[in-house]
């Protein structure tokens, strides 16, 4: 009880409320606008938090993340273009509902389902995170190395497209993580005489380049002149009726559970959660033939799942310090910039941050409900902004954000370089998300691996004597082998991803 009161006292501080509000507004806006996702938005705004206090900064960044899941449904329903990837499935029934003149209840159910699932997920996060932190205390270098390898393996296994290409991107990310001064020996690696690189390549400029500039370059090449056709200019009757609730309650419950569980798995992000939840709804529905023709449960299931997944994705980061998605990697950077290391010690060393962040999500979910229902007409108007006006502003934010990292043009150069690389990666069908995750995990993996090997006198035998570390490595190897030996499973997953 004391903890809950303390947590709310942090989350309800005016400054934290203001930042949470700012975060969810930006998040909803980003979710509504196609062409910019949560990773790009967080990487653009990351530099603005460097000079502020850590608690409100992270509350804002987290708000952007779960806010996008709310906003993403609006464009799916009204324009048949997902505002962000996790709302792809919502297009199937949401747009059909809008065509039938039921855009209001579709938007309303998306917001209410998101609220219920988001809150459910945060309640479980509150209950699960502290005991998991206790487990983290028993982890040493070999276990952390095992966790990092398992995290990367899961991300690679669950990524769509070629397994070899996914592995290659992970290795490139690990290599980029070695750039700069080696802290153990003082040797300088891969800096090519550029002084600014001695501190390593920062996550923020790489993410801004790959996700921000890279996406903009692809969009201006492919679809700059394409106009979006807004189906409904005025939305009426947002509150779902009793029949809508009857049709949707099972979808919301299963979406909440499925989303929460998938969000826990590294790589199991909100996109996969929404796809799995939609597929499950089709299995358990009494009228599966209705899904895809404008059934409200087809909106409720994926929207609940993608919101539940955002809450549980915080668990591995807050308890073990392991990011499970690019967004979590960016939040990890947000912690590290302020000298705070998330992990088992976070709950003891910075309870204000740990509990303040978690409980701000309760408050944020309520804010989002208030923002999304009455203000939906405002968000609909936002959709009228053409991309030709938006993209120069996104580019500008990337460039200025990069400059302010160190007041250096070298950082700006890095952003532009990785922007072009990100563009090429999309053209050559490589996944930038894996590179980002490996870049964050790289130094962590190298340090724990080197420490482990130093402890054992240079032999890998240390992993044989540590059951948890050995178990994690065995699971990683089995996972990778299973995807190589049974490519059918992977092909099925890819088909699901393409839907």
């Amino acid at each position, binding site marked *: 009880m004391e903890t809950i009161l303390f947590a709310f006292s942090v989350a309800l501080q005016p400054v934290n409320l203001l930042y949470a509000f700012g975060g969810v507004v930006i998040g909803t806006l980003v979710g509504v606008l196609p062409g910019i996702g949560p990773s790009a938005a967080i990487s653009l705004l990351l530099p*603005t938090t460097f000079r502020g206090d850590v608690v409100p900064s992270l509350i804002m960044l987290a708000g952007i993340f779960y806010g996008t899941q709310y906003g993403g449904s609006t464009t799916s329903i009204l324009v048949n273009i997902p505002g962000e990837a996790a709302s792809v499935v919502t297009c199937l029934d949401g747009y059909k509902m809008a065509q039938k003149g039921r855009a209001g209840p579709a938007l309303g159910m998306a917001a209410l389902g998101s609220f219920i699932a988001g809150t459910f997920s945060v309640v479980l996060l509150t209950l699960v995170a502290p005991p998991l932190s206790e487990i983290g205390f028993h982890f040493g270098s070999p276990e952390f190395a095992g966790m990092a390898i398992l995290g990367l393996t899961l991300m690679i296994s669950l990524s769509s497209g070629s397994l070899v290409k996914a592995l290659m991107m992970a290795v490139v990310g*690990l*290599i980029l993580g070695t750039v700069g001064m080696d802290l153990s020996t003082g040797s300088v690696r891969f800096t090519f005489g550029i002084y600014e690189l001695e501190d390593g390549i920062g996550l923020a400029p790489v993410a801004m380049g790959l996700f921000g500039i890279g996406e903009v370059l692809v969009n201006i*090449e492919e679809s700059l002149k394409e106009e979006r056709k807004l189906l409904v200019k005025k939305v009426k009757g947002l509150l779902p009726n009793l029949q809508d609730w009857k049709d949707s309650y099972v979808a919301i419950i299963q979406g909440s559970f499925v989303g929460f569980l998938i969000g826990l798995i590294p790589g199991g992000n909100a996109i996969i959660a929404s796809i799995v939840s939609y597929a499950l709804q089709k299995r358990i529905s009494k009228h599966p033939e209705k899904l895809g023709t404008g059934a409200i449960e087809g909106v409720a299931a994926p929207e609940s799942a993608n919101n539940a997944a955002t809450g549980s994705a915080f668990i591995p980061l807050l308890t073990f310090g392991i990011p499970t998605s690019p967004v979590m990697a960016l939040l990890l950077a947000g912690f590290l910039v302020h000298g705070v290391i998330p992990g088992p010690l976070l709950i003891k060393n910075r309870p204000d941050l740990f509990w303040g962040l978690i409980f701000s999500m309760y408050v944020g979910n309520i804010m989002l409900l208030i923002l999304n229902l009455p203000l939906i007409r405002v968000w609909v108007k936002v959709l009228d902004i053409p991309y030709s006006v938006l993209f120069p502003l996104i580019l500008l934010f990337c460039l200025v954000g990069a*400059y302010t990292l160190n007041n250096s043009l070298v950082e700006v150069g890095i952003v532009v370089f990785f922007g072009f690389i990100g563009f090429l990666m999309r*053209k050559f069908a490589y996944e930038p998300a894996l590179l980002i995750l490996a870049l964050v995990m790289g130094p962590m993996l190298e340090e724990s691996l080197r420490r482990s090997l130093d402890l054992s006198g240079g032999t890998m035998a240390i992993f044989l004597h540590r059951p948890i570390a050995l178990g994690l490595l065995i699971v990683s190897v089995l996972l990778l082998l299973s995807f190589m030996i049974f490519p059918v499973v992977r092909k099925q997953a890819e088909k699901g991803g393409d839907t």
Partner: protein
Amino acid sequence: MLMKHRNMGSAIFCLILGLFVLMTGVRLGLKVDLRIGPGFFPFVAGILLAFLSIVLFVQSLTETKTGQQKRSFWSKEHGWVFVFLTLVGIGTYILVLNYLGFLLSTFLLLFFLFTVIGGLKWWKAALSGTIAAAAVYLVFEIWLRANLPRGFFSF
């Protein structure tokens, strides 16, 4: 260009990168005073990248053309022009930023992007460029005290 050709091209590039990283790892030292050296991790990563690149190259080489559509690298006929001009605009911005200062160079970049790439009318571009440059200046320079470049004109 078929995807297999793109894969072969990128595999060759990554193979060269992997070999470079591998050799740098050896040069940095795999062991230092009986402890793991700074070159060990890059060495292992370089081997992995080179190996995976060869696998991708061989996979692409043996891939049949069936089911693969020949697609242009660029989605639209003049798509590359937009990308090229955007990169030129940004490159010029980086070059002149320290001389012209943040406000003027940012306005010029935005005006260029709004008109040439975005196709906005010149007065709309000028207005949007001015407002956006001023807003970003207010947020980063005044509110966040970021010390943006001032240039010859001191703004």
